Every structure is written in C-alpha cells, then in structure tokens.
C-alpha cells in the first residue's frame, strides 16, 4: 500500500515536471517560429525594396513600343523584344567602351589594392612621431572630394612632368619637358600608385583598422626568424589578409567601373562605359540616321533604350558579383575584413 502511494506521488511529481518541460519547449518553439516569421517577412520586404529598380529595368527594357502606353501591362510586357538592347549596343559602342573600361580598370585595381595595403600596414604597425598628424590628414583627404582639386589636377596631367624633373630640365634647356597624359589611362595608374586614386584613402583606413587588430605574435615570430619588415609584410601579412584584399578589390572594381566624373574630366575619346551611359541620351540622334526613325520614335524609345543601356552597363558587375559573392562572403566569414 505504502509503496504504491509513494509511486503515485512520484508519478504525479513526474507528470508535473513533464508538463513544465513541455510547456517550456512549446514556449521556446513558439518564440522560435515567431522569430523565423519576422526574419523572413523582413527579408522579403527588403528584397522588394532593393530589387525593385532592377526588376523595373528588366521589365521595361524588354518592352516593345506598343506596350509603353498599354495600361494592362504592369510587369510582364506582352510584346517582348530585344531591339532596345540592339539600339543601346549601338549607342554605347558597347564592345569598345568595355575594352576602354577594362584597360583603365585592371591595372588600377591591382596597383590600388597593393599600395593601400602597404600604407595601411605602415600606419597600423609602426610608431613614428608624425604618425597621428599624417593620419589626421589622411582622414581629411577622404572627405575632400575630387571635385575640389579636379581643375588643378587636369592641368597637372595635361602638362605632366614626373616629380618636377621636366621643369628642372626646362631650366637648363629653356623648354620644359612635359607629356600630355589626357586621353590615356595613365592618370588613373599614377594616382593609384601614389595612394590618391578613387577612394584610396578609405581603403588605407580599412586596411589600417584590419592590421591593427591582427595579433602581433606572427610578426614577432617572423622577426625572430630574421625577416625584415618588408619580407614580413609580403610573406606573413599579405597571405593573412586575403579576406580584406578580396573585399577591397571588389570595392575598387565597383568604384572604378562606376566612376564617371574623373573619366569625363580626363578623357575626350576612349570613353569608358559609364561615361557612354551618361551621354546616351545625347547620342539618340544616331539612331535617327542609322535606322531611319522619326523624331517621334526617338522620343518614344528614349526611356526604354536608356533602361536597356543601364542593364548592359550593370550586367558585368552583376555577373561578377553573382560568381564571386559566395567566395566573397565566405572569405569574410573566415578571416573578417575589419576587426
């Protein structure tokens, strides 16, 4: 009798315990589901906001003339056409423009990433009296946009002499030796080589933050093994900074690709693709001659051709991003770019 009672009490006790346990599990589950629900709603909403412009572009770029004023066409056009892309290809001189962009972009990206990494390392790991002041100046150079100094820079590259050597020669021969670097990609290469390219200061800042948070043990070990500062940098720091390098490189590619202000100033011919896009509207009359369109047609086509052009300019970046993004996000995860 007694033992049965005890057993019952025990059972009751256990069942209460079970109840509490199940309750807490249920509560946790509900919380988790709510969290998930919130997460996915948020992501869907954000996706709509962020993808809207591209979806809009795609929807419009494939539209034929008939669909432009058809109120029943909202997203999916009834008459799908590739004509807009053909016209945009003609107006942008797409292959040449892409070639011009790449000639400017590839060396610039490599030079810029390396130089910024080096300077960032210098700021992060060496102490010297004037470092703080120079770093303050670096911050200042980030916020002074190129517009402030573009006119003097234009003059500088029109009559370029390396480190005033040309002018020194000029003092002797009476005729300064200068080179006209406009309409070549050299202004970009030179600016990047001296850490003054598009947003170079920002990348220096990013690399400095990154190196500052790397453990010092690696360098100490290298020093003990007899590495000088430069070989330590090349052999130890660079391989360890892969994540930061990839991220900065992605940014440098994007910003060089998208730049149009500097390119417009330094180039009159050999225009890169971004500049071609800005003048696409003014070149619409080319279509008139080539296709025999009336000016009304041109007016109608104006926006769809521009939208097709936008897509074509973005396309290489988007492809690069889709291919590279997995590697890119993984590398962030592995090493982190900024501590």
């Amino acid at each position, binding site marked *: 009798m007694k033992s049965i009672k005890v057993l019952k009490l025990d059972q009751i006790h256990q069942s209460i315990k079970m109840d509490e346990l199940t309750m807490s599990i249920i509560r946790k589950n509900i919380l988790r589901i709510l969290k998930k629900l919130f997460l996915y709603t948020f992501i869907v909403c954000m996706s709509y906001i962020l993808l809207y412009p591209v979806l809009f572009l795609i929807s419009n770029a494939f539209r034929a003339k008939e669909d432009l004023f058809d109120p029943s066409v909202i997203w999916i056009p009834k008459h799908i056409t590739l004509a807009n892309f053909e016209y945009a290809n003609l107006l942008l001189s797409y292959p040449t423009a892409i070639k011009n962009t790449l000639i400017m972009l590839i060396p610039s990206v490599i030079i810029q990433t390396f130089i910024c990494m080096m300077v960032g390392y210098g700021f992060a790991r060496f102490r010297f009296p004037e470092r703080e002041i120079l770093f303050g100046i670096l911050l200042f150079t980030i916020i002074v946009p190129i517009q402030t100094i573009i006119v003097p820079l234009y003059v500088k590259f029109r009559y370029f002499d390396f480190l005033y050597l040309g002018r020194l020669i000029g003092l002797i021969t009476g005729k300064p030796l200068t080179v006209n670097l406009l309409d070549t990609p050299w202004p970009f290469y030179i600016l990047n080589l001296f850490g003054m390219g598009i947003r170079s200061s920002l990348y220096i800042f990013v690399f400095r933050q990154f190196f500052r948070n790397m453990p010092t043990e690696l360098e100490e070990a290298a020093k003990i093994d007899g590495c000088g500062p430069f070989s330590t940098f090349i052999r130890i720091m660079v391989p360890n900074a892969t994540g930061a390098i990839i991220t900065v490189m992605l940014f440098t590619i994007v910003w060089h690709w*998208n730049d149009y202000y500097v390119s417009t100033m330094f180039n009159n011919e050999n225009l890169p693709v971004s500049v071609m896009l800005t003048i696409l509207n003014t070149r619409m009359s080319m279509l008139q001659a080539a296709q025999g369109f009336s000016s009304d047609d041109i007016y109608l086509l104006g926006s769809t051709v521009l939208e097709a052009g936008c897509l074509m300019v973005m396309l290489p970046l988007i492809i690069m991003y889709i291919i590279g993004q997995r590697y890119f996000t993984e590398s962030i995860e592995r090493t982190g770019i900024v501590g």
Partner: protein
Amino acid sequence: MKKFSLNKLNMNRVIGRKKLSLREREAMYGRLFILPWLIGLVVFFIVPFIDSVYYTFQKLSFGDNGLEFTYIGLENYIYAFTKDPDYIKNLTSSITNMLYEVPIVIVFSIFVAYLLKDEFKGRTYARTIFFFPVIIASGVVITVLKENVLGSGSNMVGSATTIFRAENLRAVMINAGIPRWFSMYVVDIVNKIFDLTWRSGVQILLILAALHNIPKSFYEVAIIEGATEWEKFWKITFPMISPTVYVAIIYSIIDYFTDYGNQVMRMVVTQANNGRFEYSSTLAIVYFVVVMIIILIVNRIIGKRVVYLS
C-alpha cells in the same frame, strides 16, 4: 631580391655608420611604408588643393592665353555667405539631415548584420540581396535611374523616390493628435527608407565581417555565466565590433557629405560645370572645413570609446 637588398641597406646602417636605436629603425620603416602615399599627398593633393584655395581669391576668365586670373580678395566668400540665396540654407539642412540619417543607417546596418550572422535557410540569398546596392548604388546607373526612371523626371537625386512616399501617413498622424513636428519627422524618415537602405550596403558588410571575427569562446563563457541575449549583445558583441562601428560611422558621414545627391555637392558640381571654377572651389572649401570640424568632433566623442583588443 628586394628583401636582400633592403636587409643589406639596413645592415650597413647598423654596422657601418651610426647605430640606429630600435625605435628609430621602426620609425624609419614606418615612413618607408607610407612613402608612396606621402609623395602622392604632396604632389596630387596638397599642391592642387593650394591651387584651388588660390582660385578662391581670383576671378577666372577664359582669355586668349587660356585661363586668366584677376585678384578680387574675399569677394567669392562674401558672395557665398551673404548673397547666394541657397548656400547657407543647403549647408545647414545637410548638416541637420546628417545628424539623424547617419544614426539610422548605423542602427539599421547593425540590425541587419545581426540578422544575417546566424545560419538559416536562404541566408546566402539574403546576403546576396543585401549587398546588392554596394554594386550599383555608387555609380552612374543609380543616378540615371533616379533621374530618369524612378523620380519621374524630377531632378532631385537623393530625395525619396515616388514609389515609397508616405503622403497619407502624415495626415493620419496629425489627425491622431500626434505633435506636428514629430509626425513630420517620422514621415520624413519613412520617405527616406528606400534611400537609407540603399546606402547601408557597405556598412552592413563591414559590421557583418566584424561579427564573424568575435571569438566563439567569449559567448561560451557568457552562457556558462548565465548571461541573457541582451547582456551578451551589450557586453560582448557591441564592444567587440566597436572599432568597425566607428569606421562605419565615419564612412557614413563622409558618404553622406560627398554623395552626388547632397545639395551642397550638387551646387559645387553645377558651378564647376558652368565654368565658375573659382566660386565652385570657394563653396567646396568652406563646405569641407565645416565637414572636417564635424568629423573631428565625432572622432573626439567616439574615438575614445572604441575598444581595441590588442
């Protein structure tokens, strides 16, 4: 090859002539590392900048021998501050806008980065979407888009686009008895959501990377000690990502001020395109003195609170 020659140089210095102290040697190498930037700074920044400042005291005209200068003293500055109808107005409004837009961008980026940090189904997709603005937001495409496509022909780059305007919200809020200034403020932010999300791609990226860099052991200790999620965030996560948040704040401020859509920047560019380089330089230089002061203040306030592990 390079390593050898440099080491030799170093050895000569050490043995041959004066023996450099460790500190002096470190300083020398530091200067060598930043040398390219230093040359660039002088040749491609300071000299052109001084030229630009010189322009502000001149009147430029296109004569027979190219540009011609006439000294006019402070005329340009006086014009900017007393006669230009837009400059002071645009300057103050862009500073006040910055004061609330940057915190929103930062909080939003931390929030999104925190969401994207943990593993869940479709995370790769979500990340691809969230970093997408980084690729096109910086460039000519978005300007063209805003001017010709989304903004229905209005030239207000940087203003809210028509799809995400909340005109009715203001009326609802005012009718509900909410103070007018507050509802204006909320509506303003809602109108800018599109713009702000497009601007936080880089910041999300930076903060996400920092989140992944926090050692897991910190959290393990915290769980053993019985810390709640809230405590974990404020006592571990936030201090650990503070250097990056600091970078993100500076970046956002700069990005806001140098954006092509910023009203003052637009004035600067328009004046330069109209050939009034001297006035354009004047506006730009006054502007960047102001921005520099703001950055220094922010640096003073935040810089000290940043936690560096090493």
